[in-house]
């Protein structure tokens, strides 16, 4: 066996190690996407197979306001990202507060929707297959919104104490990445549950 020495070509672009925070969050998002896929497939698989009511068309109203609020929060958190990168902390706090408010509106809307479904329409998680898959899928997403809201609120409080500045822009970018994932997941959940 013979070998021929070859010279290594000079690199034109300097390579940097990927951010471990972003890699970690990306791995989390991939895993969470798999979980969401399972719940979405379960919902679609059992769609229309409940032997008894109520059915989705009888009890579900399309949550337009909540959806607008949640999707808008992706814009506000993006503005917050830009603000912290430019060290405009006043603007950052305002955009972050707007994001929290929009997320809170979404969760409040979900809470009222569930209250109506449970107490008026009599749909619980054990009523029929629709109830089981609906509360599992929407509840999974709402859990992610709660976790995201907790993270955003924590950062908001830290910023009020003056603990956050542009040096934490990459860390906040990771939180924003999670929030964008939560928004993207809602597009899928919304389409499957309320539109199909």
């Amino acid at each position, binding site marked *: 066996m013979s070998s021929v020495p070859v010279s290594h070509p000079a690199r034109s672009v300097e390579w940097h190690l990927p951010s471990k925070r972003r890699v970690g969050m990306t791995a989390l998002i991939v895993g969470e996407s798999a979980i969401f896929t399972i719940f979405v497939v379960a919902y679609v698989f059992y769609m229309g197979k409940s032997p008894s009511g109520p059915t989705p068309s009888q009890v579900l109203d399309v949550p337009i306001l909540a959806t607008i609020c949640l999707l808008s929060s992706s814009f506000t958190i993006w503005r917050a990202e830009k603000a912290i990168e430019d060290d405009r902390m006043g603007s950052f706090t305002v955009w972050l507060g707007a994001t929290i408010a929009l997320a809170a509106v979404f969760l409040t809307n979900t809470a009222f929707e569930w209250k109506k479904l449970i107490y008026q329409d009599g749909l619980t998680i054990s009523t029929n297959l629709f109830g089981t898959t609906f509360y599992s899928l929407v509840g999974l997403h709402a859990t992610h919104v709660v976790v995201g809201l907790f993270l955003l609120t924590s950062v908001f409080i830290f910023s009020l104490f*003056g603990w956050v500045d542009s*040096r*934490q822009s990459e860390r906040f970018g990771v939180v924003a990445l999670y929030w964008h994932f939560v928004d993207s997941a809602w597009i899928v959940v919304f389409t499957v549950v309320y539109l199909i």
Partner: protein
Amino acid sequence: MPASTAWPILLAFGITLLFASLVTSVGVGIAGFLLICCGVAGWAKQCLPEEHHEMIPVKARQFTPSSVRTQVAHIQVSEVHRAFLPVESYAVTSGLRGGIAGGIVMIFPALLYGYLTQHSIWYAVNLLGGAGVAHWTNATTADIAAFHWNGLIAATIIHAAVCTLIGLLYGAMLPMWPRRPILLGGIIAPLLWTGLLHSILGFVNPAFNARIAWGWFALSEIVFGIVAGVIVTRSGKIRTHQTLPFILRMGIEAKEFEGPKGDGR
């Protein structure tokens, strides 16, 4: 050095309590939530706006490597040569021949199984061939024990193809374990093959899986392996040279090809 911190442990404990409250009580959840808030606040206080550090004095230590061995033995070989181990192995074609021979011999325990259990030598043939015949669904035992041309043809094709492929695989694996071909082919490979089939046959062919006798199946596989191993052992070894042309490694004699002139140890 980054300052040590216990806050992440508190946070993790709080998350654990919060999820445990799903199956215990609200009070556990409230305690978990409070611990989470404390953990996040305490951890953030150590990281924001700057991470806490602590100074650790570094003590320089003098280290002199030493060894009780005073002599080194050098390999007396030219540096331009490389050693190929093992020096000799079986040719790939010996595995192929072993697979064909083993495939022929293993037919007899299979036929014996059919004759002893169902009084028909065609039972085992149809069990194997039924996998390739689409309309054989929900066949009765009498159907399977009877002679069928399509079952015989399908079984012959399946058996010949599988035995040839396993023989080739066997020949390709021999250089990795050249000393005990009968142990590899006669015991280890059949056991692995039987175990693999036992775990997947229920999904692949449920009807076959319901009727198969695993003891007889393993016996046939062991007969196959032993015969293949004996054939390989008697085939003789060739020198192991990964740089040899494929024709020579196959065991085909060709004058125009010569091996490398090195000290193959």
